[in-house]
């Protein structure tokens, strides 16, 4: 029985099917945010893995690694060329970058310092442990930057990965509502930079749906914030603890 779960076919098939169910639900519900395809796929996929693991008498974590990960990794790999592809919207709006690069850099550096301070404040108010706070500090960077930084400052990289993934899912699912509530579309440059910082590559894809300026700004935010986090989080973590 468990033999059929040891090839990549299961992981690929599960990913495609749950995402298609998500798309179908999203269409049927006329775009209800709760049925956002990525969110549905994530929840449904996890539930299916938990149920199958229980049926086969394995732990969810080990069943995930042996059965889902081989196929999931194949799909995950395509995020690499997809991230590179954001150079295209960036290039298409070179006019904005040439005109506003000083403001863009200043906003990303100053904004991330303010954000980090606010995140530490909120975390302490809610009562998170030191390790948890350290794990959350690098979350504005993409996973590949955030995980090693988190480990180097004493955080738990599994928590960091969870934060990075949830950031993206939240932005992709609630983007419309957030942009409306905080009136972000009055300034497309700011909206793009914010979406790229908070939602990473997925946030950039969402920003691109809003417009070419937002998309290019989100792409530049992903790159610059990565370097900013590399530089300031190690210093920041020493200052606050």
């Amino acid at each position, binding site marked *: 029985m468990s033999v059929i779960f040891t090839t990549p076919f299961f992981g690929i098939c599960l990913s495609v099917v749950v995402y298609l169910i998500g798309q179908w639900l999203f269409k049927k519900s006329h775009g209800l945010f709760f049925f956002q395809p990525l969110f549905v796929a994530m929840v449904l996929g*996890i539930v299916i893995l938990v149920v199958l693991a229980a049926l086969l008498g394995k732990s969810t974590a080990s069943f995930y690694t042996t059965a889902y990960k081989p196929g999931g990794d194949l799909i995950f790999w395509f995020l690499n*060329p*997809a991230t*590179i592809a954001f150079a295209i919207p960036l290039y298409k709006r070179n006019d904005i970058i040439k005109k506003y690069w000083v403001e863009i850099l200043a*906003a990303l550096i100053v904004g991330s310092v303010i954000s980090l301070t606010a995140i530490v404040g909120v975390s302490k108010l809610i009562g998170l442990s030191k390790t948890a706070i350290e794990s959350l500090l690098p979350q504005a960077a993409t996973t590949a930057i955030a995980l090693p930084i988190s480990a180097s400052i004493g955080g738990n990289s599994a928590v960091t990965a969870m934060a990075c993934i949830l950031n*993206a899912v939240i932005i992709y699912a609630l983007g419309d509502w957030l942009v409306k509530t905080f009136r972000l579309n009055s300034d497309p440059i700011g909206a793009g930079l914010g979406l790229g910082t*908070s*939602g990473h590559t997925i946030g950039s894809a969402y920003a*691109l749906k809003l417009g070419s300026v937002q998309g290019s700004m989100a792409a530049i935010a992903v790159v610059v914030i990565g370097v900013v986090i590399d530089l300031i989080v190690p210093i920041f973590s020493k200052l606050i603890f």
Partner: protein
Amino acid sequence: MKTSKQTTSKKAAPLLVQLGIYTVILFVANAISSLFPASFPVPAPVIGLILLYLLLTFHIIKLEWVDSVGSFLIGIIGFLFVPSGISLAANLKIMQQQGWQLILVIALSTIILLVVIAYTAKFFIWCRQEIKQLAAKPHTKSLNTLHGLKMSVNQHAKGGE
């Protein structure tokens, strides 16, 4: 819109050529990425993004050589992210241990990052406009010109929607 679509479909490089460009850039980016120290990680896709941007900006690579595959990949990025979302299945224990507080802080952090960065940018762009207006004041006496300048800056920032 119609003309741009026609030109891209006319000149679009074959699929395999486009994929070739992406894979070569990824390979080179990965090699560069390995040169960075562990304390200053810069992942291959981020370096690849910069490389492709520079190649496009310096007209070494033409837009139509990478555009259609790039748009396709960006278009399905929600799907490409599904395995990352499902990977949380391996970390369900953390959620049980740290519970709702952790999820709440992550959700709040997302909103903080989005709003703070967006408004910081808005503030700096506003500063630039103010400085420009102050600099323009001695030369232009009428309020109308100032207003026109502000409008044109605003229009430029809003362009492309």
